[in-house]
């Protein structure tokens, strides 16, 4: 067990940290999006019931979308206060449009992948799309995470006796282990469920065989049964124009409200085979604000005749799945939970980082500090931990500094932001290899500088500062600035403490080493 925990941890610690860090950022993806795309800074509070798609969306689609196109319309909600729809345009290119739900004006947003594209896809596919390799790597790491959680429980000798134990005044190695144990044990159910639910979201990728065995490789048939969709044939249908979208929203709302006894609305509409006689409209409660479950209710209408083709409500097994998946997606509107997820996500990052640090401390104590093994792992750990935080800071700074028309070597503005992220990240590894022990302190100072600069740049480029955002009720941007400030202050504190620890050998000002305790922990 010990061997398994140590080597899975060392081999995958950096990767797990990246996944956890990006996942934690994705908890506040809409908020980061609003920070990075100032055009989205607005408020919307009425739950999506008042939007009139027949005026805002349908005429535009009839002019711009290709016949037979698949259309997704996402209604505005509190966290994403805009109306969004995507379709294949007349040239066949996938196009996405955001509208202000109040007046239907087009939002010319900053060109950026921001958090909901870049951080989110990095979280589950590491920005490696080729052959799903990224997905499989994340899947493998998630399985390893489960192994680490279980083996950790077995090798932790005093789970209950040491439940609340953190002794910063003890030798650095001991206090690192305390912090690793503490952050692991108190949020253990969170780590377990977040990892399992992450694997469950991608069950069709990781376990395709049972589905293909039962459905003989027909994924469409499986989706129809499992998600409540309807697939109609796409063979040479006649062109036909649909009259209304709003009628389906109203009909779905009425049916669901009657079923549950409380007000319900659809938050997303799909149109299949747009502009043909086979067109269907699928109304879904995909990411509803008021419940954990994802995609529990689905209604499919014939878009031309208006008849209901399918009324799907999740059965017990599917219901359990929608809850677990919803627990991972956290698209519900519940601000205390969002903050708690953020704190627990950061706790997970601390758990992974202290795990690797403890491994190094154990080797330094036995006089193996200058071995290649320790130096390599140290450089990798510094780059994986503080390096990815610096790279994230660089991504935010690049977003504020790059001009709208920026382009280099065929890369547009959004791609250049990602280049800034990866180039910065690589350079932190090089810096860590060169500076060895001092790298932690250097990089903490860089994080502090980046955090403060990001706040100032947001102010300079948009005129939005924390008090102004609070008074306008745009909490997303105010919270982002406050988190950046807290991050910068924590980095300064860590840098100062690290400097002190180089002279005293402990993380706290009162150094105390107990030989008996050292012997016990060995």
């Amino acid at each position, binding site marked *: 067990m010990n061997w398994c925990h140590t080597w899975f941890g060392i081999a995958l610690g950096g990767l797990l940290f990246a996944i956890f860090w990006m996942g934690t950022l994705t908890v506040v993806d809409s908020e980061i999006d609003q920070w990075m795309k100032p055009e989205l800074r607005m408020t919307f509070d009425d739950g999506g019931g008042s939007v009139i798609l027949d005026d805002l969306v349908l005429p535009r689609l009839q002019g711009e979308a290709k016949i037979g196109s698949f259309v997704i319309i996402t209604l505005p909600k509190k966290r994403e206060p805009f109306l969004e729809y995507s379709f294949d345009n007349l040239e066949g290119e996938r196009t996405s449009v955001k509208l202000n739900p109040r007046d239907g004006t087009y939002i010319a947003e900053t060109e950026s992948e921001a958090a909901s594209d870049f951080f989110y896809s990095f979280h589950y596919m590491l920005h490696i799309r080729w052959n799903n390799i990224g997905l499989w790597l994340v899947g493998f790491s998630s399985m390893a995470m489960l192994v680490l959680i279980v083996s950790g429980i077995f090798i932790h000798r005093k789970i209950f006796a040491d*439940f609340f134990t953190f002794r910063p005044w003890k030798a650095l190695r001991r206090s690192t282990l305390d912090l690793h144990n503490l*952050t692991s044990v108190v949020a253990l159910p969170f780590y377990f469920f977040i990892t399992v639910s992450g694997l469950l979201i991608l069950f069709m990728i990781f376990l395709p065989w049972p589905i293909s065995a039962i459905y003989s490789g027909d994924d469409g048939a499986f989706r129809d049964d499992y998600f409540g969709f309807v697939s109609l044939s796409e063979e040479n249908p006649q062109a036909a124009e649909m009259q209304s979208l709003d009628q389906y929203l109203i009909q779905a709302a009425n049916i669901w409200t009657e079923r549950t006894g409380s007000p319900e609305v659809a938050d997303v509409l799909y149109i299949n085979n747009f502009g043909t006689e086979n067109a269907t409209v699928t109304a879904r409660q995909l990411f509803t604000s008021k419940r954990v479950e994802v995609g529990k209710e689905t209604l499919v209408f014939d878009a031309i005749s208006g008849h209901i083709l399918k009324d799907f409500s999740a059965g017990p097994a599917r219901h359990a799945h929608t809850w677990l998946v919803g627990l991972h997606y956290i698209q519900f509107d519940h601000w205390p939970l969002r903050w708690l997820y953020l704190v627990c996500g950061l706790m997970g990052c601390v758990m992974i980082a202290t795990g690797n640090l403890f491994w190094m401390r154990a080797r330094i104590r036995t006089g193996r500090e200058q071995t290649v093994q320790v130096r390599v792992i140290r450089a990798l750990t510094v780059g994986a931990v503080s390096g990815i935080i610096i790279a994230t800071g660089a991504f935010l700074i690049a977003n504020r500094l790059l001009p709208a028309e920026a382009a280099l070597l065929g890369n547009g503005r959004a791609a250049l932001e990602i280049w800034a992220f990866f180039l910065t990240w690589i350079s932190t590894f090089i810096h860590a290899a060169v500076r060895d022990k001092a790298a932690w302190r250097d990089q903490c100072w860089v994080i502090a500088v980046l955090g403060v600069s990001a706040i100032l740049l947001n102010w300079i480029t948009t005129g939005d500062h924390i008090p102004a955002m609070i008074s306008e009720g745009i909490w997303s941007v105010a919270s982002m600035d406050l988190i950046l400030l807290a991050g910068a202050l924590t980095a300064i504190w860590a840098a100062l403490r690290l400097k002190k620890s180089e002279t005293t050998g402990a993380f706290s000002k009162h150094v105390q080493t107990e030989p008996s305790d050292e012997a016990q922990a060995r």
Partner: protein
Amino acid sequence: MSVTNDALFLFLAALTAIIGCALLALSQSRNWREVIGGKPPELTPRLAKWTGWIFIFASLVFCVLRDGGSFAAILWPLLFAVGALSVAMLLAYRPSCLKPVSAILAKAAAYESRLRAQELSRPGNKQG
């Protein structure tokens, strides 16, 4: 549910989670020494453990009252996690902050001994 009720139940759920964790921490003699000093009186660790769990269960009740079971199943363990982390940090840096929690223990001990006395004084229960 109204905004005030939401805020009240959230506050109570967080408070009971933290107090519950603090009581569980005080049920361990090492932490008792840090916070109060000396050895805990006899039976106090057991009492602290039981009251601690009662508070943590109360936290679950407040979570359910606020949000219903589906959200409470997530809110409760996360409040517990953050509560336990806060208690551990207080024990490490400001142990005296946890002293007021021992007042709850004193109350619980007094109540328990009163119960015991009543039990003994009831006719037919003499031999206890």
